[in-house]
């Protein structure tokens, strides 16, 4: 796999010692792990909310963080699109202003910014939501608005924290497909936290399994199902669902 981004991070957050390397290319990377294993912390660290004690974070040819060289770009200069768990829509702004938030400052009054916010909403079939308030949206609608808001600034990487977890089963099936298509179209690398093998298969994601602040295994869903390295991996991927074959054929079995 040609990796276009990587994050190598060592840090302590509370009781958790985080020591991981994750990387990926245009193919989405799924971050899987039990609660408290440090997944969200890693995403926020890549976004620039936490400063690692050591490590390197690079996306494309841009170095976002490098402890050895003293580089630490603030979040606003990192070019990352962050969609937190629960989607983090600004409750005091209408949908269009949420999406246009990243275009504000220099150009909020200009109609071009509003037009491009609306265009991204429409690409996600959410143009009709533009004047709604976030608290009137369904889970699936919120997810699309949050994704639109992250995409509108044309980030170099998308960080999605359980983008499908808040949805009921039916919405989840529909949104999972949509998200997969959208990620493939946009060609933006994505790091996606999820607990669901269906998501991983639909996104055709490369998997990193994280436990207690470390990456314990990586590979495709099939490879993990076949050769689980830990009990957790066996539990998540060992179910027959993972090998039912409703997903594209796996290109490269076996852990990397």
């Amino acid at each position, binding site marked *: 796999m040609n990796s276009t981004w990587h994050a190598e991070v060592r840090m302590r957050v509370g009781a958790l010692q985080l020591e991981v390397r994750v990387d990926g290319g245009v193919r989405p990377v799924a971050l899987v792990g039990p609660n408290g294993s440090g997944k969200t912390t890693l995403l*926020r660290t890549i*976004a620039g909310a936490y400063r690692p004690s050591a490590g390197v974070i690079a996306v494309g040819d841009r170095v976002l963080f490098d402890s050895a060289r003293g580089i630490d770009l603030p*979040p*606003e200069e990192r070019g990352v699109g*962050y969609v937190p768990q629960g989607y*983090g829509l600004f409750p*005091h702004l209408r949908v269009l202003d949420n999406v246009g*938030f990243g275009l504000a*400052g220099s150009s909020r009054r200009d109609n071009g910014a509003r037009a491009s916010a609306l265009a991204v909403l429409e690409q996600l079939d959410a143009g009709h939501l533009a004047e709604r308030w976030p608290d009137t949206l369904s889970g699936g609608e919120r997810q699309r608005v949050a994704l639109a808001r992250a995409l509108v600034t044309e980030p170099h990487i998308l960080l999605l924290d359980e983008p499908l977890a808040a949805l009921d089963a039916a919405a989840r099936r529909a949104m999972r497909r949509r998200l997969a298509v959208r990620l493939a179209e946009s060609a933006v690398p994505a790091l996606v936290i999820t607990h669901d093998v269906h998501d991983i298969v639909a996104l055709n994601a490369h998997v990193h399994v994280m436990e207690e602040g470390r990456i314990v295994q990586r590979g495709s869903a099939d490879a993990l199902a076949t050769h689980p390295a830990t009990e957790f991996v066996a539990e998540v991927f060992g179910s027959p669902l993972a090998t039912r074959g409703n997903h594209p054929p796996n290109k490269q079995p076996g852990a990397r």
Partner: protein
Amino acid sequence: MNRQANLPDALGAGRWPSLAAALPMLVLLALPVVALALASSPAELAAGARHPLFLPALGLTARTTVVSLVVVVAAGTPLAWWLAASSGRWARGVEQLVDLPIVLPPAVLGIALLQTFGRNGLLGGPLEALGLQVPFTTAAVVLTQVVVASPFYVQSAAAAFRRVDRDLLIVARTLGRSPAGAFFGVAVPVALPGLVSGVALAWARAIGEFGATLLFAGNLPGRTQTAPLAIYTALESDVQAAVALSLVLAAVAVLLLLGLRALPGGRLGRVVAAAAGAGRR
């Protein structure tokens, strides 16, 4: 406002006896307000309002409390933000310091302020060298109000800031906002209902300030005689003026209370954001 539904019957069995037990206290809360409202005829009230103490005292209260509120909000908002973001021993210590004026008796506070700003006080020497006299001036009135009112604002604002989801701020930063941009663009509007109720509580406390002001600022008509002090003075000569002043202050307090109750919850930030954005559309 979110209200819990009535308890299931089995759990609510003790409700009426509980209310009955509280009845004397409720009567005690209600009766003085009723008595105050019934104390005067409109004609007597009008006469009281013409008393020479009346307007200057109300005017001084209005001016000094507005200045105090500006100071409290300007200094208290950054402090509340810091308190909300910090969890260390220092933050806990500062929090208790902020709460101190709530538990200190006003008279003690007045003495303490005199010991600080008075001629023989801690800062007396330097202030005198600068030609500044603080005690028994309007500045002393404002200083006292700031001290007694700030805890109410800071605590309310800190609680509101704590409820702002950290992820909203991270998102705002990744969307290109500076720390200040995320603060004013997200944290303040989202926390606004809490900030406004803090302002209302602080204002009520500043308007009612009496004891510390009397000791530290005195009771000089036109300079340090705020409405509560005027009530105290008027009571000796003209009860009707005292009652009229009291009714005005009670009305302001009730309005503040009703205003707090009617706060449009999470929608307040929207109203402000919409107003701010209206010109830009």
